[in-house]
């Protein structure tokens, strides 16, 4: 019945890292990186989430089952997002669903 008590220092360190990452993500947003702004924002958010899940939500001490449950959540979310967006991504791959395609090939670039 020994519950693992995490030292207070760990929590505070995690908290400070989260604050730094928040400042970082806000700062990066003011630099124009083109599409990489989104990538950076999501990457930082993902890091922050991992810190919260791993330390605050005690996934570090959790049993395998809880980890599987958490992973399943993300897997299914990815499934929903991936297969839905794939439709929009591939909709214009073929000229076929685009009606009224011209019969003559383009004569000049």
């Amino acid at each position: 019945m020994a519950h693992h008590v995490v030292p207070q220092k760990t929590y505070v360190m995690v908290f400070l890292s989260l604050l730094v990452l928040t400042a970082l993500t806000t700062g990066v947003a003011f630099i124009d990186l083109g599409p990489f702004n989104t990538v950076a924002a999501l990457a930082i958010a993902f890091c922050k989430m991992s810190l919260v899940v791993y330390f605050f939500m005690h996934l570090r001490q959790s049993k395998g089952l809880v980890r599987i449950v958490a992973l399943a959540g993300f897997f299914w979310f990815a499934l929903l997002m991936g297969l839905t967006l794939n439709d929009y991504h591939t909709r214009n791959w073929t000229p076929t669903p685009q009606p009224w395609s011209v019969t003559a090939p383009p004569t000049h670039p």
Partner: protein
Amino acid sequence: MHGLPFQLAQASTIARSVDQLYYFIMVVTLFFTALIFLTIFYFMIKYRRRSPDERPKAIEGNIPLEIFWTAVPTLIVAVIFVWSSTLYFRNSEPPKGSMEVFVTGKQWMWKIEHSGGQREINALHVPLGRPVKLTMTSEDVIHDFYVPAFRVKKDVLPGRYTSLWFTATKVGTYHLFCGQYCGAFHAGMIGSVIVLKPDDYERWLAGGTQGESMEAAGEKLFQSNGCVTCHLADGSGVGPSLLGVYGHSVKLNGGTSVTADDAYVRESILNPRAKIVAGYTPVMPTFQGQLTEAQIGDLIAYVRSLGNAQPKPKPKEEGKQ
């Protein structure tokens, strides 16, 4: 058409190929249904309980058998998948040079416009043996253009074009149904597809209520809505010239480019600021709500007719391409 109609006419080139697949799956279905039913009946009789304290021996399972009856369905569905997907891809590609027809669905009727300007409601006259391609859109909710005798069906969506095509192979009158629930009189949104012999069709084209062609109607709209004041033919206007644009690649602000198909032309009419041609400014107002779907169709037909014209020399070089 009377009595028990267990057969549906095969009236298009697609119908025959779809039916072959259909019959194949039917044979598979009947075989396995019969197999399961007969096996169960046989076991039910053979192994019926003969005394109340009968205790049969345990049978754990049989791995080779499990593999066998996993592999067999896998093979069968693989065959069906390959067959049906090939067919589907083939059937989704309209042949070059198809006759173009413009279809608008609205609660609860089908409005059909031929490129020659003939308009019909809840009826579609097509010639025998010639591929016909429908470009379809809806003015309100989702409808679905369904001709069972041709085995073709496609949803008709608002705000977007979908298309289907067929080549009729049998003279006759066939049902046209709305296949996607669309409100109170969904069941009344039906019509006929009338397949005529080519010369009958020509006669029908000539004798029908002759309107102006879609191109001509579109040209009039192009004038009356003031499009012509900006989209000058020589490219010196506020907007780009539309000569030689349709069907070609257009460079956009921001470096991307897009092929000018009717989805693009349609978007440019309704949401002109979505994609700006390189070198131009987003000043065009939207025509959302000011044009009916049929009018947009006319305009697209007009722009399409300009597609093969040689563009006149333009002062703005970057506006070209």
